[in-house]
């Protein structure tokens, strides 16, 4: 099985660029994984973790992606997101605080979409940063 060229890009920087064996992400419709030679595809991403499985022995590279897009063209996968972070860029105490704030807010107004989205973002950050087992 070969590899493909993977790029994770945010407006401020290129988070990751290199070879990968598989890319796993979640679109607005559901989880999806790309292997080399995948049909060209364009999808909108949800707020979720993106995993790039690197060729052995490198393991995997994860990133927290808060909405965005993924474009697959045969041997290339590009993940575009206006907010994307690598695990080491995540401010864990801040995410933890945001999570608590959102949870507290949701207890009083459980229907607040903004708070729900904030909670999802905080959860994702914590998951990617590795302080909560994903």
């Amino acid at each position, binding site marked *: 099985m070969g590899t493909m060229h993977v790029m994770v890009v945010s407006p*401020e920087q290129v988070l990751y660029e290199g070879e990968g064996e598989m890319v796993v992400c979640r679109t607005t419709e559901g989880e999806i994984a790309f292997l080399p030679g995948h049909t*060209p*595809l364009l999808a909108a991403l949800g707020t979720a973790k993106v995993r790039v499985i690197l060729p052995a022995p490198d393991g995997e590279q994860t990133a927290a992606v808060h909405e965005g897009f993924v474009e697959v063209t045969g041997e290339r996968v590009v993940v575009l997101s206006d907010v994307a972070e690598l695990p080491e860029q995540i401010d864990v105490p801040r995410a933890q605080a945001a999570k608590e704030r959102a949870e507290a807010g949701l207890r009083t107004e459980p229907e607040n979409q903004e708070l729900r989205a904030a909670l999802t973002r905080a959860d994702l950050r914590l998951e990617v940063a590795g302080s909560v087992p994903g």
Partner: protein
Amino acid sequence: MELIAASRIVRAQGRVQAAVPYSETITEVVRDLAAAGAGRESPLLTPRPEIKKVAHVVVAADRGLCGGYNSSVIRAAEGSMREHAALGRDYALVLVGRKSESYFRYRNFRIDAVFSGFSDQPSYENARSIARAVEAPFLSGEYDLVELIYTRFVSAGRQEVVVRPMMPLDVEILEGGDARPDAHGDGEVAAGYEFEPEPEEILERLLPVYAEARLYAALLNAAASEHAARQRAMKAATDNADDLITSLTRVMNRARQDSITSEIMEIVGGAEALRKGKHTADSVESAHEATEHQPGAAA
């Protein structure tokens, strides 16, 4: 200040560069979608048949001391406003930077929104809030056209003020945005793409993001240009001050010489008068000698 600006240019330029891959790929994605035939009827892509109101997004600096940077952006904005006014179109102003705000506010223009405090270091968040502020009135039909006026950073030695249509997004622009001034489509056609969800839905999410990315690129370009303009202005100011110091020093020396000379003349005159009175030639002779050397020493 010149040196501070010089060091900031490098950093600002780095940020312009760092934003390139994103805007490049997002442009590609939009183009692929457009090639797949999506969004022909999207309001963000369709020019309005009748334009009643034009919004101008004017990107200037928060601070002065940067030569003609602010005034040239403002001049371009006013020029464009006049052009549209001549066609009977109303205007709306969305101002970025304190300098553009104070200019238009002082002249009692109607201002729709102001964003300031970040002109030398814009973040993506800033771009997003500006994009939101123009997108809603555009989609609701209040603005029929949104123009972006900013200074494009070509190189440290060259920046140019540009007026670009921002909404509706022009297909032409899709082919050559800020990020890729010379690049043209490499002829690849997006054949057989799969979409998830439907292309229209993706486009609907993508176009606002694309507008944000363009705005962000514009803000970064403007920031880099601002630093370059400031560096140049401060260098000119330093050079001018040096010239001024040289010429003023000369004026001062001349004045001093003049006063010394006239003082000596008075002494000599006085001594001459004394000599005539008392007929003691010797002392005056020596005073005479001293005066002849004095102006030379002061020169």
